[in-house]
C-alpha cells in the first residue's frame, strides 16, 4: 500500500477509536468525577510518551531545528488558547448549559486533535512502523478523551449517539493534519526535525494546560501521578517493542 493510503487508514482508525470512549456511558447517565480524572491522567501519560518517542527519534538529527519547532509548537497552542479566550477553560464541566461553553469545548478539542495529527504525520515520515506506533498511541489516548467529551456533551442533554458522533468529528482534523504534515515533510525532508519538534512542543504544552490541572482536582495528585507515569512508561516500552 502507498504510504499515504496507509497513513489515511491508520489515522482514520485512530480518530475512529474515539467512539470507544462512549462505551462507559451506555449503561450510566453520568460517570464519577474520579473516573474523569483518571481518564485525563491516562491521556496525559500517553501524550507525554508520544512526545518522548518523537524526541528519541530525532535525537541524532538537528537538535537546534527540533528545539526551534518545539518552541513554535508551544507558542502556537499558547496563542490559539489566548485568541479563543480559552486559556483557563475547564474542559470537564458537567451540567454547564451555556451555549458558548459548548462551542469552546469543541473548538479546544479540535485544536488538540490537530496537533496530534501532526505527530502521526511526522512519525509516518520517519518510518512506517513508527507511524503505526504513533497512530496506536494517539488512538488509544483518544478513547479516554472521547469518554470525557461524551460525558460533557451528554450532561448538556445530548443523546449518546450524537455525542459520540461529535466526539469523533472533533478528531477528524487529526486525519487531515496527519496527511498534510506527512505530505509536506516527504516533499521537503529538511522540514522533518522542525515538524517533529512542533509536535513535541504542542503535545507537552497541551498536557500541561489542558489535562493535568483539572485532573488534579478530580482525582488527587498522587493517583494522577501514578496513572500518568505508568502510562508514559508503558509507551516508552511499546516504542522499543515496535522497532
Amino acid at each position, binding site marked *: 500500500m502507498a504510504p499515504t493510503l496507509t497513513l489515511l487508514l491508520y489515522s482514520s482508525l485512530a480518530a475512529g477509536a474515539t467512539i470507544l470512549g462512549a462505551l462507559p456511558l451506555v449503561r450510566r447517565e453520568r460517570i464519577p468525577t474520579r473516573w474523569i480524572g483518571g481518564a485525563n491522567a491516562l491521556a496525559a501519560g500517553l501524550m*507525554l510518551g508520544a*512526545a*518522548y518517542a518523537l*524526541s*528519541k527519534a530525532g*535525537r541524532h538529527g538537528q*537538535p*537546534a531545528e*527540533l*528545539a526551534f519547532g*518545539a*518552541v513554535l509548537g*508551544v507558542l502556537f497552542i*499558547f496563542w490559539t*488558547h*489566548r485568541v479563543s479566550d480559552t*486559556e*483557563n477553560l475547564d474542559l470537564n464541566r458537567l451540567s454547564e448549559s451555556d451555549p458558548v461553553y459548548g462551542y469552546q469545548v469543541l473548538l479546544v478539542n479540535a485544536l488538540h486533535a490537530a496537533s496530534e495529527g501532526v505527530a502521526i504525520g511526522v512519525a509516518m515520515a520517519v518510518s512506517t512502523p513508527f507511524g503505526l506506533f504513533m497512530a496506536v498511541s494517539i488512538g488509544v489516548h483518544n478513547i479516554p478523551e472521547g469518554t470525557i467529551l461524551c460525558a460533557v456533551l451528554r450532561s448538556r442533554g445530548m443523546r449518546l449517539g450524537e455525542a459520540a458522533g461529535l466526539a469523533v468529528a472533533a478528531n477528524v482534523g487529526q486525519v487531515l493534519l496527519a496527511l498534510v504534515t506527512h505530505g509536506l515533510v516527504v516533499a521537503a525532508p529538511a522540514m522533518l526535525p522542525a515538524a517533529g519538534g512542533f509536535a*513535541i*512542543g504542542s503535545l*507537552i*504544552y497541551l498536557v*500541561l*494546560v489542558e489535562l*493535568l*490541572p483539572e485532573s*488534579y482536582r478530580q482525582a488527587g*495528585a*498522587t493517583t*494522577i*501521578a*501514578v496513572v*500518568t*507515569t*505508568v502510562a*508514559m*512508561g*508503558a509507551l*516508552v*516500552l511499546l*516504542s*522499543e*517493542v515496535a522497532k
Partner: protein
Amino acid sequence: MSWSHPAVLVFVYGAITAVATGLGALPFLFVRSLSARTIAYANAVAAGLMLGASFGLAAEGSDYGGWQTFVGVLLGVAFILATRRFLDRHEVEVGDVRGADARRVLLIVAVMTVHSFAEGVAIGSSFAGGMTLAALITVAIAVHNIPEGVAISAVMRPRGASLLSCAGWSIFSSLPQPLMAVPAYLFVDAFRPALPYGIGFAAGAMVFMVLAELLPEAFGKGPRPIVGLLVSLSLIAMLLFQAFL
C-alpha cells in the same frame, strides 16, 4: 595503586562532576522572595528540567533494555510513594525550612541523589570503554549536572534556604556519582546488566516527583498558561542541552 591508576582518575573526574552540580545554585543568588508566584515559577522550571532529564534517561535506558527500564520505572514510582509515606509520618526540618516545604525539599534531594547512583554507574561503565575520552565525558557530565543543581535550588531557595545550603545539597545529591563510578568501572561486567533498571528507576522517580509534587503546587499558586510555558520551555532547553553534550 598509584595516583595514575585509572580507578583514581575515575573517582577524581566523578568528584569534579559532583562539585559542578553546586554551580546550579548561582542563578538564585538574587532570588529571595517567598511569594507564591515565585514558588510556582521555580517549581515549573524545576519540573521542566526534570522531565527533560527523564526523557534523556528513558532513551538511554531503553537502549540497554526496554523491559528492564520499565520495571525500573515501576520501582521508582514505588520508591517515591514509600518515601512520601515515611515523610508524612515524621516531622522533618531542612535548615530553616519546615513542614510541607521541608518534605518537598527532602523529596527532591532524595530523588536527585538516587538518580545520581544510576548516573555514576553510567559514568563508570562508559569509562570502561577506554580512558581517551575520559576528560570529554567528564566535562559533558559536569555541565549536564548544573541544571540538576538548578532544579534542586529552584525548589529550596524560594522556601527560605540559604544559597550555601542550596549549593551544598546540590553537591550532596551528586556524591553517588564518584562513589558508584569506581566500582562500576572496575567491575563493569557485573554492573552493566543493572544499568537499565537503575536508569528506569531514576526516570520513573523523577517523572513521579514532578507530577505528584511540583506541578500540583505550581498550578495551585500560579496562572496556568505561564506555568505551562515555563515547564515546556525549560523541558525543551534541557532536551537541546542534552543533544549538544
